[in-house]
């Protein structure tokens, strides 16, 4: 089975994000990058699928600037076999252009099943998986928590509010993976050593996106306003309640 997993390199959740003075983006200095946390679940599921289907191969694909190769190396160290880096030539494309290019590469290479994280945690769009499916004319299931593959079909369980939905889809198909699907393995040292020699093919976004033009242009970045510190209300319970109600009505104006 030809398996692909789409990963995005994103800022570490522990990084303190600063915006550029002119609001054109985030300050790259001092940002530590990691593989998207949901993408790690996608990598794990791709490798597990390979292990269950003899003769399979996993290709990790990442679209992004040159530094994305670090994320690719992590995926290769975890056990992916080879990689494609689609260099975005620092164009920071929107979900539409990204999905167009990814769909083309997936079709060109003839993948039979594709895994993604349910969303990247940088811009939290959660758009690319569904759009790739649309452009390929494939079924897609998002928020997958359980997956079984047999006889050219996949049975995917996804979380919905108040319950679960079970989908049966023919392959090829694309799956947006959720945290609970599996526990991503750590890269073993032998895996890290082997990753050094695994092939990474580089493509250019300008060549893969065709004539797609972005539908969304990011015009300004701002941090959310800082939270004001809490205020302690003194007095006995009755006085506290009275003061709290007054503050909620007159100062916060929420009741």
């Amino acid at each position: 089975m030809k398996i692909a997993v789409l990963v995005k390199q994103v800022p570490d959740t522990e990084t303190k994000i600063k915006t550029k003075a002119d609001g054109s983006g985030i300050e790259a200095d001092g940002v530590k990058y990691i593989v998207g946390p949901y993408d790690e679940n996608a990598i794990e599921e791709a490798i597990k699928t390979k292990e269950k289907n003899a003769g399979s191969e996993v290709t990790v694909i990442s679209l992004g600037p040159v530094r994305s190769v670090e994320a690719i190396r992590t995926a290769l160290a975890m056990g992916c076999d080879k990689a494609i880096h689609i260099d975005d030539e620092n164009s920071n494309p929107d979900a539409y252009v990204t999905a167009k290019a990814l769909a083309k590469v997936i079709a060109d290479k003839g993948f039979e099943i594709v895994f993604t994280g349910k969303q990247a945690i940088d811009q939290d769009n959660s758009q690319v998986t569904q759009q790739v499916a649309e452009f390929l004319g494939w079924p897609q299931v998002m928020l997958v928590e359980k997956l079984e593959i047999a006889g050219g079909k996949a049975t995917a369980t996804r979380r919905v509010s108040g319950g679960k939905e079970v989908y049966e889809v023919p392959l090829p198909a694309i799956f947006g993976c959720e945290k609970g699907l599996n526990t991503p393995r750590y890269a073993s040292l032998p895996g890290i050593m082997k990753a050094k020699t695994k092939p990474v093919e580089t493509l250019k976004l300008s060549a893969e996106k065709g004539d797609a033009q972005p539908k969304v242009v990011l015009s300004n970045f701002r941090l959310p306003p800082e939270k004001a510190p809490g205020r302690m209300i003194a007095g006995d319970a009755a006085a506290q309640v009275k003061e709290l109600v007054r503050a909620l009505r007159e100062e916060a104006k929420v009741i």
Partner: protein
Amino acid sequence: MEPNSPFTPEHELFRKTVRDFAEKDLLPHKEKWEQERGFPKEVFKKAGDLGILGVCFPEEVGGSAGDWWFKVVFCEEIIRCKMAGLAMDLMVQADISTPIISYLGTEEQKREFLIPALKGDKIAALGITEPGCGSDVANITTRAETQGDDYVISGAKTYITNGGRADFITLAVRTGGPGYQGISLVTFPTDTKGFAVGKKLEKLGNHSSDTALLFFENCRIPRRYVIGEENMGFVYIMKNFQGERLVAAVTSIAGSELTLGETVRYCQERKAFGKRIIDYQVWQHKFAELATQIEAGKRLNYHAVSLFQAGIECSKEVSMAKLFACDLAQRVAYDCLQAHGGAGYMEEYDLARFARDIRLMTIGGGSSEIMKEIIVKKMKWTR
């Protein structure tokens, strides 16, 4: 990344692996495993699967043939499990009991002992210290009599890490006359008749570690289990110590750095007499001093590691690194506990455990006094 850093992207990937292993798989169990005075055997297996036990060993025996900087990464991150005892048990497995088998062992010894140890399938211990001698290795009395093709071993070993559940011991025995020229190292399977674990020893710290007193009564093993040449054991033991001492030095600095960082954070929150502890100059200066010494210790360690990695004789630098790092860690533990006040003395903070665990570092793997003896000799003074 700083210029001329010895760490490549592969080292950083391995750093993440060890950190995740320490923080996600081990740290959550710290109270339980410390109280139970041990941890499940599966930890060895998991470490083996991740390649943590075979970092610098050749690929033929299941290692990853990594350079010594991978070992540094391992030491710097494994301490995040906050159980020095568990970390020590893994190091005894990977750095203390097994390298000598890789250098000098026969194919049979590698197959029987080394390969399963690096996989985490067999647990290894190093048996040198005896009830009657510790640092004074040349005077061990556990005797191996030659009888035909066998050795018959009688004696006792104590303070043996992993001793209570080791599958084999890299064991120092007296095969010849008195003094350092009569000592051999052998691979000793613990299912040998006449072998007994006396008792698990209670210790000041390293509670998650298994430390035992061992007895040997007419234990018969084949003579082909000798490691390298007969009566050359003392030399092998002294060579083996270099890696062990570097591991101790790097671990001490990493533990100090982590503890100082956590203490500074604590002092940013804790208030006394209307201001934060960190706002007192006395503590600011104390922390600046410790941070400076930690940085100096780290650079001395890295210098010793580069020499060791390059195969240059560096017993002086290794001894200096261990002496400095392990002594400094005592001061870090004392000052950081003091900065915590009463909280530092309470079991619910990591500091109490760190303070008692770190005490071993100036004793194990060659005491600070022995380090000074080696440094003096290497300085070629006339005495």
